């Protein structure tokens, strides 16, 4: 049987959605007890177009859409042992949805050592991955690196520094980057390439400008780049598109944690990205512990 390395998988993740499914299929093929794991992958990356749009309603529609409950129950994982790093605006760790978990956090914002989110974006993203009730992989291990300030702005240097820090962690599995800019940072690209070589999957947002103009880090070859779909499974009107896109996920009116113990429905490729990261965390968890 052909031995497929993790790096082979990551390389393949650059392709379209069907290629992503194939890559995972191959990845688990070389492992023992393949059959059950193949079923997992097929379930995790369901054909979203096959889900009736009538179901896509209510605050938890994206979890319903992704058949998250069935994944949890059939495969007995909720993200245990998967290590996920979110590079964003930090996290409001006092939110009740994070009470079940311990979050490792650090700030890379120049002159602001606080790791607490004062913008809301990072809390939303972290919640969609690990938040109790709203997250896809609520038992994964979360690291929150704050690189965006209260206005949601940050520098590519801060993101690069955070990526470098992930590189120093040999246990890292996944990085979520629901951020970006039109400007290419060679330093970011170098660290992302090194992370991918080391077997870490870097999941990045495609951007919200309804264009195919490159948006980084999402347009880096090594990233798994996520565009957003709406409730009719079509491209969300704002979502970037083009050859850099690897996979699409729900990104309109998705529900997750927000500042001050609230929950909020937000739209964007920023929202679609942690949905993919959460699903991959379930896959990592399954491959590690089952």
């Amino acid at each position: 049987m052909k031995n497929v390395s993790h790096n082979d998988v990551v390389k393949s993740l650059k392709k379209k959605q069907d290629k992503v499914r194939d890559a995972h299929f191959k990845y688990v093929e070389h492992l023992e007890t393949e059959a059950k794991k193949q079923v997992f992958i097929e379930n995790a990356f369901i054909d979203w177009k096959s889900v009736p749009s009538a179901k896509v309603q209510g605050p938890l529609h994206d979890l319903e859409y992704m058949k998250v409950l069935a994944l949890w129950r059939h495969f007995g994982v909720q993200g245990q042992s998967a290590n996920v790093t979110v590079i964003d605006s930090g996290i409001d760790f006092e939110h009740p949805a994070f009470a079940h978990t311990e979050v490792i956090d650090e700030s890379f914002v120049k002159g602001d050592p606080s790791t607490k989110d004062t913008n809301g974006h990072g809390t939303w993203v972290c919640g969609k991955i690990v938040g109790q009730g709203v997250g896809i992989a609520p038992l994964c291990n979360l690291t929150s690196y704050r690189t965006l300030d209260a206005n949601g702005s940050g520098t590519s240097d801060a993101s690069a520094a955070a990526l470098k820090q992930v590189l120093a962690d040999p246990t890292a599995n996944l990085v979520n980057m629901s951020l970006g800019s039109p400007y290419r940072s060679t330093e970011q690209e170098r660290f992302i390439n090194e992370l991918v070589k080391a077997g870490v999957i870097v999941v990045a947002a495609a951007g919200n400008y309804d264009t195919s103009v490159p948006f980084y880090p999402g347009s880096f070859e090594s990233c798994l780049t996520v565009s957003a779909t709406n409730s009719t499974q079509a491209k969300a009107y704002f979502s970037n598109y083009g050859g850099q896109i690897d996979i699409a996920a729900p990104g309109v009116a998705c529900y997750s944690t927000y500042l001050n113990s609230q929950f909020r429905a937000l739209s964007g490729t920023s929202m679609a990205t942690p949905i993919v990261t959460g699903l991959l965390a379930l896959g990592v968890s399954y491959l590690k512990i089952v």
Partner: protein
Amino acid sequence: MRQLLTTTLSLTFLSCTPHRCGGRGEVGPLPPPAPYVTDDNIFHASHGPKLTTLQFNPNTFSVCAGLEVVYDGTDYGLVLPTTPVHVTHNVGKHTLEIRCLNEESETLIPPSTTVEYEERITQ
């Protein structure tokens, strides 16, 4: 003088639980619901300084693949029946709606269990 704080719960049963009304596919008249149940029949609440933790009785919700928990009008999301849910701790009257879901995340019949309880602090 040392003050002793005691938290008490009183529960009013407003609707049937999935267990009492039967699972999927069961038809026919339902037995009259008991006017009162203890909290442990549906859930147990424990209170910390900032958070209240709701732990659901897995026997009561054994037919449910998952639960959607709405507490004081806020949707706290989707959990397995064995998973505790943390909510913001406030003294006073609360409404807890528990929607029983199948694996497709569809709401089972009966659609939900609603309890009202009052958390009081006495000195």
